[in-house]
């Protein structure tokens, strides 16, 4: 067993989110820690949303990839705290999302009000097709829990926005 974290991270770089397959789990920022126990390697991950149905598939995929690389005993465990935030997504991941047609989450700053007023929406979301900022929210809930549905007022294309969380 090659007890080297970098080596394991390079293997995990091949595990993708089944729902947003351009993102690896490292891009998403859900791998929290790697620990070595006598015979076993433990990968600690955190869910994006409480009911994210991708977690089970991701966990199986992590095990398969590591076993393929010669690891005999692999354990995947979950932690809830601290709660995942879109700020843990890598810059690389954000670029990949945009190229894939999904607007990446905006950076959360001190001035970000995560909890919007009623009928208020997250503004200045850039259209991934034509890069216009003239876009509007169609629905706060999109095709998966982590996304909202937007539309571009210029090119008229509807698109997913990976919402700040």
């Amino acid at each position, binding site marked *: 067993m090659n007890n080297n974290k970098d080596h394991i991270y390079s293997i995990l770089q091949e595990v993708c989110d089944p729902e947003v397959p351009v993102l690896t789990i490292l891009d998403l920022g859900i791998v929290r820690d790697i620990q070595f126990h006598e015979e076993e390697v433990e990968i600690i991950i955190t869910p994006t949303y409480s*009911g994210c149905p991708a977690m089970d598939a991701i966990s199986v995929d992590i095990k398969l990839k590591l076993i393929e690389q010669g690891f005999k005993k692999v354990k995947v465990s979950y932690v*809830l705290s601290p709660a995942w935030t879109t700020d843990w997504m890598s810059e690389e991941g954000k670029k990949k999302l945009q190229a894939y047609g999904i607007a990446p989450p905006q950076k959360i700053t001190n001035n970000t009000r995560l909890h919007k007023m009623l009928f208020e929406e997250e503004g200045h979301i850039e259209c991934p097709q034509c890069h216009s900022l003239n876009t509007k929210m169609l629905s706060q809930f999109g095709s998966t829990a982590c996304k909202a549905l937007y539309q571009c007022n210029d090119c008229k294309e509807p698109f997913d926005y990976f919402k700040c969380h």
Partner: protein
Amino acid sequence: MPHTKNALSFTLHLADTALILAQRNGEWCAHGPILEQDIAITNITLDLIGQARNFYQYAARLHEANENAVTEDSLAYLRTEGQFKNLLICELPNGDWAQTILRQFFFSTFQMLLFEKMKQSNNTQWVAIAEKSIKETHYHVKWSSEWVIRLGDGTTESHDRITKALDTLWMYTGEFFIPASYEMIEVTALKNEWMNKVKEVFDEATLTIPENVFMQTGGKNGVHTENLGFVLTELQYLQRVFPGAEW
């Protein structure tokens, strides 16, 4: 140890409440009034199932010392009505869209206050689940509040419907704030703030908070309406007919 026993009962109450509301909301899947809202209510459902799983997993761990056979699945699929501790409001039929929306609004507004309080508890697992869930609950409150306003201050028909829903549901809101013996968060103290938040949205929705209504209770202690049996029959069918089935 009465402390562990209470922690277990309270954790099950939180899990059951989230699960039963999720099961009810899930009935809207493919039946929502328009596609986007169908997706919205089922997204909320998924969050609630996630919460339920987190609470059930913790409840199973609280059991573990003496009963290894208890798992998150056995807690959800193999208990009967009398053992479920969910709030009554969660098991009521969906009714129309107005009734579903109004229930979600009452519930999510309460849940947000409850989770805020739980974040200060000394049980680290509750704190972790509350911190995780509350980020999602904010979306639920916003979405359902906007819909209450849209329907209440909408057309004559939508106003009539949500008023009818209010008549049906109000008597089940008292239970939020009447503590069970095992309850480890002081829910009574959340009532004023909940009323204020409801009033704020109701004012905009041109709805009036009913007065002097007798409040139904029992769910927290396993005394349910006849609805729960039907909900569980559907929810537990597969595990009852094919025990231990997995996929």
